[in-house]
């Protein structure tokens, strides 16, 4: 059983090294097989079996990635589309299983991933906050205690009883962000969510994240917005085709990444704005 072996390995590691890290990723590889057909159906499968075909594509989304994030630090993850950034984040959140390697996470994780928090459009904002929080493993009483804070932060007092289909995308994003950061997370995983709301709200979300860091909370941030990455992160990983291409101070990685983009895209100046 994994739980047995894991207890056995812990004492052999230096306690100080482990104590400092909130997220520890060792030799992580994530491979998934996907059939070419988007929705697998019995008919298509039978036809394929009849023809003796086996159309399976193996996607190696993350390859041999290792890193650690100490408590209270912000790690940025950059890379072109399809580099494996979101897959990496989902695996840290426990949503995608590792194919190889090991992920160790210390503390309560709150996620803000690219597809929204799974809000249901017909439910009101209030109902969605409760449902999302319960799904994340909080109790109803914990949520009630945080509810005011979430609504205040999102600045949506007047809209909480309206169905979310009536929300603008900015309001939607603000609520999602507010839920994620106000869940009292030890570790916050954010995927491409910094462009929510207007510049003022963006500024506010920056400040909130800094505040979380000051409380020794840890953040892993995936973004194409190099400006946010530069401003917020203590360290940056550049993923390319599932591998770590570079891991260093934000300036150095961003410079190298921009240089890479320059070569890849000709003389177009890469935008440094948030996408």
């Amino acid at each position, binding site marked *: *059983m*994994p*739980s047995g072996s*894991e207890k056995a390995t*812990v*004492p052999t590691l230096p*306690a100080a090294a*482990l*104590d400092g890290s909130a997220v520890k990723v060792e030799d992580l590889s994530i491979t*998934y097989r*996907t059939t070419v057909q988007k*929705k*697998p*159906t*019995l*008919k298509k*499968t039978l036809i394929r079996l009849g023809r003796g075909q086996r159309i399976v594509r193996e996607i190696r989304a993350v390859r041999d990635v290792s890193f650690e994030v100490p*408590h209270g630090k912000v790690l940025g993850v950059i890379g072109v589309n399809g580099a494996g950034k979101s897959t990496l984040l*989902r*695996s840290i*959140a*426990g*949503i*995608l*299983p*590792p*194919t*190889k*390697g*090991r*992920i*160790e*996470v*210390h*503390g*309560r*994780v709150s*996620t803000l*991933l690219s*597809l*929204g*928090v*799974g*809000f*249901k459009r*017909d*439910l009101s904002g209030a*109902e969605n906050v*409760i*449902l*999302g929080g*319960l*799904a*994340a*493993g909080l*109790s*109803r009483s914990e949520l009630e205690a945080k509810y005011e804070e979430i609504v205040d932060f999102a600045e949506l007092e007047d809209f909480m009883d309206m169905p979310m289909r009536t929300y603008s995308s900015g309001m939607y994003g603000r609520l999602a962000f507010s839920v994620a950061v106000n869940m009292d997370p*030890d570790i916050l995983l954010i995927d491409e969510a910094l462009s929510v709301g207007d510049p003022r709200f963006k500024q506010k979300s920056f400040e909130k994240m800094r505040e979380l860091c000051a*409380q*020794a909370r840890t953040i892993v941030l995936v973004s194409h917005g190099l400006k946010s990455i530069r401003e917020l992160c203590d360290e940056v990983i550049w993923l390319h085709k599932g591998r770590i291409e570079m891991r260093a101070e934000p300036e150095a990685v961003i410079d190298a990444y921009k240089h890479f983009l320059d070569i890849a895209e000709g003389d177009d100046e890469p935008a440094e704005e948030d996408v």
Partner: protein
Amino acid sequence: MAEVRTATAVERDGRPRADEFTGERHVYEPHPIGLPPLGPYFRALWQRRQFAFALARTNLRSQHFNTVLGQLWLLLNPVLLALVYFTLVEIIRSGSRSIEFLAHLMLCLFAFRLVSRSVSQGTRSVVGGGRLILNTAFPRTVLPLTAVMTSFMTFLPTLLVYAVVHGIAGLPVDANLLWGIPIILMMLVFGAGAAMMTATAQVYFRDLANFLPYATRIWLYTSPILFYTDEVPEGLKPILQLNPLWPMLGSLSDVVNAGQAPSPGYLAWSLAWALGTLIAGGLFFISREREFAVRL
């Protein structure tokens, strides 16, 4: 190592954090035998009970969002259906059926729907829960189990309607009625197992949900709902008895409609089906659930 972590956590907040004692240390590794460690899994599942309940209530409400009668349809649907079938049987049997039979038909039909709706909603629960699955880590068994809860919540009010018919028909009210509780419980357990099975299968074969209404219809006709268990030809009985719902509905009709003690054979057979299906469905689901996020 755990001690060191606790110390830092206490320093940080000035109070001990409950998290430290409820296992907020997660390790994700490949599962060599396909199953996660079951202890932590069931703990996490138990932790999501409020979520399951809230989701079940939401599902219930959303089913009839835009209709005038709204929630009333949860009651109207099964009652109208029962009347339709009663009319059908009356015509076929040229009006020889009594109100006792209506009581039997209603009870068994409502109980049948408890299972069939668990399965049909359970089947769609994983594929339909796409965004939630892609964005939040939680034991996925919550989803089919929620479908069973939703189905049970729809079932409860129909019991009131049945009680009225039971009273009008002048059927016995005695201690044997209490057997109905464990029988319904077994049907719930069976429904949960079946829902987990079909929910997993649906991820791989999306056609399943299209086949399901037809399968359910056949299932309805081969269950002792539109007839009593002793009314079928002897030659067909061995085949019909293979239906897991046969002993369950048979016993239910015996104890509630006829006021008899249940047949021990039927009870044992029901229990075996219920537990067997739950274990098989549960293992199938849990061993596959980590793949769902990739397959959706």
